[in-house]
Structures are given as C-alpha cells and as structure tokens.
C-alpha cells in the first residue's frame, strides 16, 4: 500500500502520512456504528426499543450526541495539573490508535508490515496505562486517583495472560507478524488456528481443545484490557464516583470514549487474526470466481471488519448479561485462575508443537 501510494503521489512523506491516517477513516465510522449497535443490542436484549427517532431506527443518534458533546463547555477545575490534564485523553487515544498500525486489513494494506507485529501491539497498548494514571492524578480528586490506580492495576495484570497466550500462539505458528499469521490461514476455514492451523496432522488434532482454551483466556483478558463489564470498575461504580474520567467534560470525554471503542475493535481484531483467520474469507472470494482480482482486497477488508464487529458484539452481549466483579475478585481471577491456566496451556501447546 505504501509503495502504491508513494508511486501515486510521488512523495514518500505524504504517502506515509496518508497510510498512517487511513485507520482514522475506519475508526470514526466504526465508533458511530458501534455506539449505535451497543444501544440497540442492549435495548433488544432488554425487550425495549432503543433510539428510534433520530434517523431510521436511530442510526444518527451517535452523530447527534457527538454534536452535543462538541458544543459543551470544557470545564477545567482550577486546581488541576493543566499540562497532564489536557494531555491525558490524547495519550489514551494514541495508545489505542497505535495498535491499528499493525493490523492487517487486507493482504495489500497493512499500516506497517513489521515482523514484530504482536510484540509491538502489546508494548504500545501499555501507553494507555500512562494516560489513565495521568488523568487520575491530574484531576486532583481522591476518588479519580483511586479509580485510576485500580484501572492501571487491572490493565497491567491482565496483560500477563494475554502475553502468555500470544506466546503460546507464537510457539505454535512460528511467527510474530500479524500479516504472515493471516496469510497462513488461507484457503478454507478449517485452516483457521481455532481449529488447529493449516498443517494437517496429529498436532492439529491434539491441539484443538487447547486452542479453544487459549481463545477463551485471550478473550477474557482482553475484556479486562478494555474495561468492559464484567470488569468495568473504572467506569461504573469505582467506589462512589465515575473513576478516572470524572472531571472531564465535552470533547475530552468524547476522546476517552472514542479510544474505548477503538480499543474494543482492536482487541477483537487481534483475536480474530490470531484464531479466526484475520481477513481470510471462510467461503472463498467472489472476486476470484468472477475474475475481478482487484475486488479481493475489498472483500478481505469486509471479512476483517465483520469478524471484528462480531467479537465486539459478543463483548456487548457479555456486558448486558453479567454483573460486575469486585476489585479484589478481579485480581484473584487474573492471578489465581487465568495465569495458571495460561501457563499450563503454554506448556502443553509448546509440547504439541514439537510433534
């Protein structure tokens, strides 16, 4: 993509800039869609209707809310640490946006085709922790600080099972690059890693249940990474107030939410790349059967987006079904349940991959 763009514009810097800014064109419509989807899914699960007036079945509601948030007064209390207060939302957004650089939207577009894709993703999503702590500290509010510390502890703890599962996958597949991972799972959906991978043989059969366990572990810890119920302590109660984004209003608040939904899609996309074939289609490409080869990348973007949106839907489904866990139970879950299971899983998958 980068080469095509630099040939088109004749300027490498411009091509790099466009290439890096392209995911914004994906994130913004996605967030508008995702917020609408969340409200509709929650409404229909609760036997009610949800937004119905603003546009057909309320699909313009998010845009209306966005306009409302823009024109709100940006209240900054006088005792805050202004530099950090203003910087924090953007840091949180950068932390979740940088992940999009390594996501393979199709076989011809990937923001940055580095060989260390997964490693880079885990590393850069740690920026979010810095942003949250900044927001909590700079708010000059005891409860925001408590909420921010809890949120930071949650994210950092749950990165460990995530990293262990990714390690298991790396051992099994032999590559860290997301583009190569998607490429390996071609030609039929039985080649997806949730079903054992493209190499047919004993290892594929043996690893099947452990892949399922790995997927579950990854999904649960990714729920905690994005602060979704049942792990939404920082957002909802957090003792008594709204957590680290209490003191934010207007556009900065919108930034926090943009980054949350962006993060939701990012982790869903990683789950789908690791286990469910990334941009590969389960039923073959229409472009190929009709002979229009340039249609194939667009189809791949479609499959990538729909798998991501499906996992986002499952996240929403879980949010409206489950109650919240308490903060010490959250830590118990991570350190006493997820990490031992992830370790055992890692060892077993490692042994199987030797076969």
């Amino acid at each position, binding site marked *: 993509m980068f080469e095509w763009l630099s040939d088109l514009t004749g300027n490498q810097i411009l091509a790099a800039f466009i290439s890096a800014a392209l995911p914004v064109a994906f994130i913004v419509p996605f967030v508008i869609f995702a917020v609408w989807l969340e409200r509709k*899914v929650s*409404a*229909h*699960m*609760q*036997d*009610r*209707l949800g937004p*119905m007036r603003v546009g057909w079945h309320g699909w313009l509601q998010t845009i209306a809310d966005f306009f409302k948030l823009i024109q709100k007064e940006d209240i900054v209390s006088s005792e805050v640490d202004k530099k950090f207060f203003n910087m924090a939302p953007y840091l949180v957004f950068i932390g979740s946006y940088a992940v999009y650089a390594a996501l393979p939207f199709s076989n011809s577009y990937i923001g940055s085709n580095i060989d260390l894709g997964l490693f880079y993703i885990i590393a850069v999503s740690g920026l979010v922790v810095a942003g949250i702590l900044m927001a909590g500290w700079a708010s000059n509010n005891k409860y925001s600080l408590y909420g921010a510390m809890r949120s930071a502890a949650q994210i950092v703890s749950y990165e460990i099972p995530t990293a262990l599962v990714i390690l298991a996958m790396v051992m099994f597949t032999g590559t860290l690059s997301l583009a190569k991972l998607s490429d390996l799972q071609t030609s039929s959906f039985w080649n997806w890693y949730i079903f054992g991978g493209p190499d047919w043989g004993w290892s594929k059969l043996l690893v099947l249940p452990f892949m399922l366990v790995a997927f*579950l572990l990854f999904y649960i810890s990714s729920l905690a990474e994005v602060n979704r119920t049942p792990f939404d302590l920082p957002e909802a109660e957090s003792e008594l107030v709204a957590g680290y984004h209490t003191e934010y209003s207007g556009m900065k608040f919108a930034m926090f939410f943009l980054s949350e939904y962006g993060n939701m899609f990012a982790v869903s996309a990683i789950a789908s790349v690791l286990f469910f074939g990334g941009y590969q289609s389960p039923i073959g490409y229409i472009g190929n059967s009709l002979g229009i080869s340039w249609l194939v990348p667009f189809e791949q973007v479609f499959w990538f987006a729909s798998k991501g949106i499906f996992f986002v839907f499952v996240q929403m*489904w*879980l949010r*409206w*079904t*489950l109650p919240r866990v308490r903060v010490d139970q959250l830590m118990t879950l991570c350190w006493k*349940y997820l990490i031992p*299971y992830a370790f055992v899983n890692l060892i077993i998958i490692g042994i199987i991959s030797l076969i």
Partner: protein
Amino acid sequence: MKEYLKNTWLGVWTVLVGMKITFKHLFQPAVTIQYPDVKLPLPERVRNRLYVNIDDCIGCDQCSRACPVSCISIETVKAIPGEDLGQTSNGKKKALWVTKFDIDFAKCCYCQLCVFPCPTECIKMTETYEFSEFRRQDLNYHFSALNTSEAIEKKNNWEKFQAEKEAQKAAAAAKPAAPQQNPKTEGN
C-alpha cells in the same frame, strides 16, 4: 483443588447460561411502545383528571369534605325564593348557587374519595392524564358556571333578602298587635 476446578467450571457454565437467556431475548419483540405516537388504551375505571358537571351539582359540599388534601374549595349562596335554578339530571331541585367550585390539581392526589359521596354523581374521574401547564396557577381549575360579577350579584341578592327578612321580623316584633303577614313561601 477440587474446589478450584469446580469454581472454574461454574464460572464458565453460569456465564454461558446467562448469555443464552439474553440472546433469546434479543429476538423477542419489544414490550415498549413509542409513546407520543402510540398510546396505551386505558381501562374503564382509570383515575386521572377530575371533571365536574356543574349543571348537576347541588352544592352539598360532600366531595370537599371527603378530600384528604383539601384541594376542592366550594362556596355557595342560597337562592332567594322565586329564583328557579332548575333540576339536576336525576330530578333533584337545586337550591344553592354554586359561586365557586375550584379544584387545585396541583394538590389532588387522585385518590377518588370525592367521587363516591356525590349524590348526583356529577364529579367523575376522566381519562385525561396529559394536562401539564407552564404555570402552577393554571392547574387550579374553576368549574363554577357563574362569573365573578354574577356571583357577586347572587350574593348581594341573598344578603338583601336576608336584610329584608330581618327588617320584617323586627317590624313584626315591634308591632305585636298588627296582623302577621303571610310569610313568603321559600321556593316551591
């Protein structure tokens, strides 16, 4: 160890059971309606805003006495003999001018205690529940059929009549020998 595995299993299984229930509800039709466009039909005995059919009111004050929050205020003036106020719909002859019949709906608690004592069934609860006003004073409904000047006129009539009666009584008492005049018949 067994406890640990049991916890894990329960954690996963109960979550899946819950998810199945919410998924089933995703496809059931919504139970809510879109209110201002669609309104629910109300049952017959519903208790909303009161209505007074002032032509039937005989001014007995029973509803005002039954009200627990004193939201009904009634003032009546006796009719002077010779005035015909007409009949209520069930044949009773009316004898009082109802000069003021106010119900303050900001106070009304919609308990229906005023409906039962009314002898002519002229105060009723209707189906209207959308009657918000911008000013609190507008919620004070005036049901009386007489406007202020007519009310003052009736009152003056009655007071004049009373004064005349008093004068007559005084004149009759002052002249014990004089033959008594026939007392005027009051009404029919």
